[in-house]
């Protein structure tokens, strides 16, 4: 096994292959070190795969390579020349394009217009549609995808839309193409097409930087592998030398800094009973995001719902909270069916959601810490149709104390807090409603390890008082160290359950399809 760790200074022989080199790149956000002196290179005509758990630093590096963010330290060397990428446009002009997981197309415009958006070919009388159409047609032929340049992007399947994104990058003469989770939304057949396209691109000298949580898929497509952990590059290797266990062992590394496996387990009655629930995918015409799922959570129990993106976890959470309708089956809180109740009523009945995206769904940025904290439980503080200032103040202060928010005070603006403390406010807000069941969707996303530990100890403390907790995570470490039970979800169903005390990382990851299941299914379909 190659252990070229921290030493990417390559020999003269393959020096000419390197198109882009990151030298000692570091990135800090406040006190968080997202990247710690990373050395890494991208070679012409090769696929370099970045492995790492969430928060390992992959996406930060990607943002730096594509000009979205600037490094706090270190340099980027492109074709032997030190460059500073000030913006994504700057990066694109230098031949570095990125294809995000969420595609960046205008669905109301045609394929041709999307490919040339912002860099339209002009003649004196306007846009040269004829030439644009011809070039688009050539690109589509090259990518072996029969899409008419005039088709509206909205009418294309997701896989085709991704091809359009790739075509756009090629139209801008991309020499380095960064792909972030390109297969997460694709069908197996579309993945095959994508891999053919990748092979075609590399044969023409395009360098690919590829990021995916589907490990086996990524190993299949890789020429070089780079593994990140906690903001550091921990290993590099040639694809020929690696296998799944090697990647997993490098990714996982140390144990988590918190461990709640020793916490007492005293469960009460069933607090939440999910019975044969189906939820229709809000975006994908008629597809079931949650398919005939049954699960029970007891009072005092912390159940972790582990799975890949797109497994239907978020949809299940939103359906339970009342944001999405339950298409079939039922969800029962204690003895009460949740059907027909609004979000407000469900919160009053004792079930609330801490959403995945706290900026978009969790906080009101214009309001203070205190006003955010009391928002969900305001009605309990109303006396004679006005909010009682003394009772609100007391509740907010006890909330801030309970969840240990570090803040200048209830009157501080919510935007002045760090991510971890903002998340504590969102959790505190729901706890102030005295819930029986608390749902949390990726509660530790984008917050540092210390805050993660605090959030989990908070959940375990509340659980010991009888709160039932159901939370979603994409991090195996969390699932194993901070839950009473791990439920693995894939493609809308529960595929396996584990006891965190006896389960291993490899087992849990394999069950989710992260390593293995998916690739085998793909083989079977052909």
């Amino acid at each position, binding site marked *: 096994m190659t252990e070229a760790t921290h030493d990417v200074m390559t020999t003269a022989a393959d020096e000419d292959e390197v198109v882009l080199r990151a030298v000692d790149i570091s990135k800090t956000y406040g006190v968080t070190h997202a990247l710690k002196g990373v050395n890494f290179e991208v070679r012409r005509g090769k696929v370099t795969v970045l492995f790492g758990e969430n928060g390992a630093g992959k996406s930060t590096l990607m943002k730096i390579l594509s000009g979205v963010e600037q490094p*706090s330290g*270190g340099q980027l060397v492109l074709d032997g020349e030190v460059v500073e990428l000030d913006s994504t446009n700057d990066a694109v002009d230098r031949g570095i394009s990125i294809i995000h997981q969420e595609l960046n197309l205008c669905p109301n415009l045609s394929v041709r217009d999307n490919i040339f958006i912002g860099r339209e070919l002009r003649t004196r009388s306007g846009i040269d549609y004829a030439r644009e159409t011809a070039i688009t047609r050539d690109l589509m032929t090259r990518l072996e995808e029969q899409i008419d340049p005039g088709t509206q992007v909205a009418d294309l399947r997701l896989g085709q839309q991704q091809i359009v994104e790739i075509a756009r990058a090629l139209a801008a003469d991309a020499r380095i193409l960064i792909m972030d989770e390109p297969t997460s939304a694709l069908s197996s057949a579309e993945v095959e097409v994508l891999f053919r396209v990748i092979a075609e691109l590399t044969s023409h000298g395009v360098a690919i930087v590829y990021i995916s949580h589907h490990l086996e898929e990524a190993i299949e497509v890789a020429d070089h592998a780079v593994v990140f952990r906690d903001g550091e590059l921990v290993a590099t290797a040639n694809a020929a030398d690696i296998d799944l266990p090697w990647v997993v062992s490098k990714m996982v590394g140390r144990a988590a800094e918190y461990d709640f496996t020793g916490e007492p387990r005293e469960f009460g009655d069933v607090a939440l009973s999910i019975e044969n629930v189906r939820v229709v995918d809000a975006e994908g015409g008629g597809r079931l995001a949650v398919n005939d799922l049954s699960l029970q959570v007891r009072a005092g129990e912390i159940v972790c719902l582990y799975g890949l993106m797109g497994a239907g976890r978020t949809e299940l959470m939103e359906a339970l909270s009342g944001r999405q309708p339950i298409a079939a089956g039922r969800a029962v809180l204690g003895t009460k069916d949740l059907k027909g109740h609004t979000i407000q009523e469900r919160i009053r009945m004792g079930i609330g959601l801490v*959403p995945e995206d706290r900026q978009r*769904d969790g906080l009101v940025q214009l309001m203070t810490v205190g006003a955010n904290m009391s*928002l*969900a439980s*305001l009605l309990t503080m109303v006396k004679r149709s*006005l909010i009682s200032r003394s009772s609100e*103040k007391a509740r907010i202060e006890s909330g801030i104390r309970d969840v240990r928010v570090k803040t200048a005070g209830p009157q501080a603006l919510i935007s002045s807090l760090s991510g971890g403390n903002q998340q504590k406010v969102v959790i505190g807000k729901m706890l102030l409603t005295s819930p029986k069941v608390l749902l949390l969707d990726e509660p530790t996303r984008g917050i540092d390890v210390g805050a993660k530990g605090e959030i989990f100890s908070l959940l375990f403390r509340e659980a010991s008082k009888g709160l039932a907790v159901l939370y979603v995570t994409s991090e195996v470490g969390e699932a194993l160290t901070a839950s009473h039970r791990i439920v693995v979800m894939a493609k809308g169903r529960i595929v396996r359950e584990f006891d965190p005390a006896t389960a291993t990382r490899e087992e849990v990851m394999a069950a989710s399809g992260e390593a293995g299941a998916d690739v085998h299914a793909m083989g079977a379909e052909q």
Partner: protein
Amino acid sequence: MTDTLQTQAPQPEAPPEAPKRKLNLNALLVEGRALVALVIIIAIFASLSPNFLQPENLILMTRHVAMNAILAIGMLMVILNGGIDLSVGSTVGLSGVVAGYLLQGYDMPLTQLVAYPAVWVVVVISLLVGMLVGLINGVLVSRLNVAPFIATLGMLYVARGIALLITNGETFTKLQGEPALGNTGFLSALAGAPLGIPMPVWLMVVFAIVFSVVLNRSAFGRWLYATGGNERAAELSGVPIKKVQTRVYIISGFCAAMVGLLLTADLPAATPRAGEFYELNAIAAVVIGGAALSGGRGTIRGTLIGAFVIGFLVDGLVLVGVSVFWQQVIKGAVIILAVAVDQLQQTLQKRRSVKRVQVQPRKPQATPAG
């Protein structure tokens, strides 16, 4: 207005309010700018015309301000929600016409009788008509997802059309009522001036106090700021966002109907064309007062200052004899200036906070030897 309230009802937990003062500094700057504009306007016109600061003129101008201020308070509710209400001018006309129609006496269908409802009934019905227009707006926006701009633009025409249909384009002028019929008092109640202060000014004060309390102390007020600031987060926190949305339009309709009554009594005549373009002055007052059209930011105090800026500017220009054409140009320029400065300040603030985050030394690096 909040200050008035605090002096009226001192809270036991007054001392810990100290950090709040500091934080409101930003809000004060936004409103403060409108206040500076108001002071400048007063200074300029006072120097140009000795009559400007005469008590009679101040009372007259404040009466003009008051009607727009009441409309603007309703508009503020809608704008805090992230919406807009273009129908208020038409609602002013419609409610006035309804009041005039009822005071004239109306022929009861299927009978030979003419009904003369009491003044209080007339007032209540007119206000209900305004709230009905608001309810329709609210339902269109919250339940049928019609964009607020479109829904209220439609109602602008519908309400105006109905006002014209009721009067057949005419104007009702018999508003004084007859003692024998028991429907007198409309004019004396609404066009009077208790303690020498015109009724619209009294009502402006009442509306301002009531809605300050609603915004600052009621759950509805907090919900309104929350839905305007982040509707998704508010919804997940159990805020009944649809109800809040419907209610703001009803409030706006109510305020407009009140202005319709005041204007009718003031003229005194109920004309179907009353209140045309009033919505624009109301929006201008709210915006000059520091509210964000995207919702979630704005205060009653700022809105009142905004209404005074607009009102004093317009009346001042008339007083010093600036041509009607120039009046329009100047009014427009002041509105744009107020909002442009606001945006500029916000951009600067954002840039400053971004810089603060980004000030991190780059490690000196040796170029790779290759």
